[in-house]
């Protein structure tokens, strides 16, 4: 069995885990980051893409609001390449309690969230599709963030500093020697091979799965309440500003424009199983009705895709068990030396995407103490790889690049304007045969046609470049189609159904993928 030895092992490659590993790397510690699947494939990659201003928590959870506005400012400086600084509105619709607006404004003042009330007419000039009956509008510094880009920037930075990033490595055991956690054993999904990772400190940053990981270390009572929410992506940006209902946070009260789409979110349902991604039809219907309240005609627009994400909410025994939104959104850092008398093991869970850097900083402060080597944190000021120029992302960047390369740059995915050269680089860098991994890196196949045109092309390019066998290429193609369908079928109506039928004609009528040769029995044995 292969073995690795490191200062810090981080379990969980979401934003928090990658943030911890990045922080550790910047402090000069050696680090290994593992995830059972792809980086940011779990909760981090399954939200609406909002970089909070803090406005949402200004009344209900002032501490969270303060953290959000501070981190919002920091992330816009250190990770601008993955952030589009579009701003946000909190709007009082006829469906909202008009008295909340003043409470909201005061909450923002008290927590330091920049907030300016503007004339609703001005808001409608900026966002013509917004409900014309809005009575109050507040402008806040909300933004959107492409988490996959952020996380993979950190991964690159970690690797450049000698750290090791191991996606698709699931932790199967945590090693303990008496009261000391000494590392973990991880199993590679591709090969089934196991590696032992010896670590001076192990960080459990597995979010909604943190309880299960703590159990493996023999630590009881780490309870994370998974709260499942659905998000719906519409095929274009109905608004260009993050639009929030000005009310206490509830279901379906925010639309986040991100890249070429906009996302409405979200719901909140307690679940026992963080891997349960069931989409409940009544939630979809309710969400579409909520969309109508913010943007009349929402139901006539084209819904592209629905997915669920699972919030890791650390259980507070004082909160009611019925609505996970009442459980604290604040993060929880558990130093198991203090809590359980177990050395070399720290759990970080809860929190929200916007505050991942802060969570990482606090975690590494604790880890540094365990290592007996307290070095300062520099993540507040050190730009992520790709963000050195300080320029935020602008919609139209890809189009601009394409227009200056009309002759020589072939597009593989027209919807998201992914050029062939970027696809080839990504395939090379990731050394993956999984087109879904590539999708998260490049947004390949995430636009209106949902892979109808690009996935055959990408499969052909992948096959040619990587010297894959035809079996592997076919598996990649079919895997992608199956994965896409999961998010398409529960919300298939209107023009997206037309698109799906066109895709049926392409994949069945033209390509006949259903009758590709089936994998040989030997190949199946290797895969399992």
């Amino acid at each position, binding site marked *: 069995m292969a073995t690795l030895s490191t200062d810090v092992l981080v379990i969980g490659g979401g934003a928090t885990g990658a943030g911890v590993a990045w922080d550790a790397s910047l402090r000069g510690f050696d680090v290994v980051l593992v995830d059972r699947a792809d980086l940011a494939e779990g909760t981090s990659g399954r939200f609406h893409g909002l970089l909070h201003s803090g406005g949402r928590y200004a009344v209900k959870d002032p501490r969270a609001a303060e953290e959000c506005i501070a981190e919002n400012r920091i992330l816009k400086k250190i990770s601008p390449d993955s952030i589009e600084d579009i701003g946000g509105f909190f709007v009082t619709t006829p469906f909202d309690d008009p008295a909340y607006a003043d409470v909201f404004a005061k909450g923002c003042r008290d927590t330091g969230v920049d907030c300016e009330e503007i004339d609703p007419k001005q808001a409608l000039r900026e966002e013509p599709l917004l409900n014309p009956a809005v009575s109050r509008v507040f402008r806040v510094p909300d933004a959107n963030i492409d988490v996959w880009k952020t996380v993979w920037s950190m991964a690159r930075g970690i690797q450049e500093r000698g750290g090791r990033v191991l996606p698709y490595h699931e932790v199967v055991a945590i090693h303990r020697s008496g009261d000391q956690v000494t590392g973990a054993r991880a199993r590679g999904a591709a090969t089934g091979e196991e590696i032992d990772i010896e670590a001076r400190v192990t960080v459990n940053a597995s979010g909604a799965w943190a309880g299960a990981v703590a159990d493996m270390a023999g630590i009881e009572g780490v309870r994370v309440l998974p709260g499942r929410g659905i998000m719906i992506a519409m095929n274009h940006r109905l608004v260009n500003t993050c639009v929030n209902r000005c009310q206490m946070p509830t279901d379906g009260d925010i639309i986040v424009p991100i890249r070429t789409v906009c996302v409405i979110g979200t719901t909140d349902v307690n679940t026992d199983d963080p891997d349960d991604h069931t989409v409940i039809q009544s939630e979809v219907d309710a969400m579409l009705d909520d969309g109508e309240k913010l943007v009349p005609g929402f139901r006539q627009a084209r819904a592209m895709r629905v997915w669920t994400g699972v919030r890791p909410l650390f259980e507070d025994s004082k909160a009611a068990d019925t609505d996970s939104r009442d459980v604290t959104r604040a993060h929880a850092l558990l130093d198991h030396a203090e809590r359980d008398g177990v050395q070399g093991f720290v759990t970080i869970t809860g929190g929200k995407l916007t505050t991942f850097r802060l969570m990482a900083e606090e975690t590494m402060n604790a880890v540094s103490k365990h290592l007996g080597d307290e070095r300062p944190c520099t993540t507040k000021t050190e730009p992520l790889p790709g963000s050195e120029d300080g320029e935020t992302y602008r919609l139209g960047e890809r189009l601009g690049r394409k227009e200056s390369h009309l002759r020589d740059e072939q597009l593989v995915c027209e919807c998201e304007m992914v050029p062939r050269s970027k696809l080839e680089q990504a395939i090379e860098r990731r050394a993956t045969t999984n087109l879904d991994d590539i999708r998260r890196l490049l947004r390949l196949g995430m636009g209106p046609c949902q892979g109808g045109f690009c996935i055959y092309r990408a499969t052909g390019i992948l096959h040619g470049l990587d010297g894959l066998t035809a079996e592997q290429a076919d598996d990649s193609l079919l895997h992608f189609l199956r994965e896409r369908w999961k998010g398409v079928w529960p919300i298939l109506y209107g023009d997206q159904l037309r698109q799906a039928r066109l895709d049926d004609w392409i994949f069945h009528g033209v*390509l006949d993928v259903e009758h590709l040769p089936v994998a040989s029995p030997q190949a199946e044995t290797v895969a399992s």
Partner: protein
Amino acid sequence: MRGELHYDAVVVGAGTAGLVAGARLAEGGARVCVLSKGVGSTHLAPGTIDVLGYAPGRVSSPAGVFDEFVATHPDHPYALLGAEAVAEALRWFSATVAAGPLAGYEYVGGLEHNVLLPTAVGALRPSALVPETMAAGDASGEHVCIVGTRSLRDFHASLCAANLRRLGVDARSAEIEIEVDKADQNALGLARKFDDPAWRAALAGRLSLKLQAHERVGLPAMLGIRDPHGVWSDLEHRLGRPVFEIPTLPPSVPGMRVYEILRSALRRAGGRLVLGAEVVSSERSGSRVVSVATRSAGHDSVYAAPWFVLAAGGFGSGAIELDSRWATHERVFGLPLHGVPAVDQPRFVGDYLAEQPMARVGVAVDSQLRATDADNVLVAGAALPGAVPWREGSGEGIALASGSHAAQMVLAGAGAPAGAAA
């Protein structure tokens, strides 16, 4: 609003079914107008005439399994049309291609035997009647070299050949360089280059260097749009071996040839085609449709006729719609639908390759393919219920036979209603 335009028959939809109905009505002496929002299925489909490819096992002879298939699929359009209607429609199509604007271009094959043609990903797809330019791709042949070019992102020769090898075809692949003036070239742009004899001769010269003795040559379907027979036979001659086309992503060059052939047949017989004319409303008198109104650039028009053929397609074209409250509508005439799952039943299921409950939805028809709710509306093509043509490989067979049937019904009954002057 202008005055009403009067025809013997108005066809809605310009896919294969609508163009066939229109052309055959015109050939039968009817004054016919085909109205369409845009071009139809032809530009997306591979250009082969698929009658029945899977039922659900691979079908080697559509004629051979026809009776058994309709016995087990009583709601299928084929059960209403019958085998002879399909055979007759295919004969008409072959003759129409031969008499069409593409000199020498022919379809080969028939109902007795499906050929197995490689797809762009390297599966083998069964088809009944295929362009001569594809026929040599049949999997029963010997060595084959699949040739691609980096300039066409819509075809990947090495993947195609690798899958063909897994299916027992002795295939390899090669790449040729084709210079293009913009990176995002599609098959149509390249087909126009192939139409140029000098360009083609130079390409054949370079290509011949890559080939081994006795190899057939498979190329993406881009061998000419104006003169495919000339391009294909010239390449076979220059390379001294069988050459065949492999359909790939839309826009489909062979499909566009079908469109051109059918459009030309319609026009030659005196029929009219109006594209960009979406039907937005219809007038009824009791159980009959009296007229339809179109909205197009500049003005609205009203088309009156004693007969209408609904060939506007299904969910794919938007002629049948599922709205966000999960209600289904036929959008041209507001006709009742058949096959819609009950309110408490799933519309779709999570298994991508399972049959979807919504798949067989179509306009409800009687045994004569008349809409159940409108006596003078005949339904053709993908608007019909009961089939899953993209999985069965039955789209063109249904379109040809039902389009032909609609025309014959109208022509047979055309004596009855008084045709008003235009």
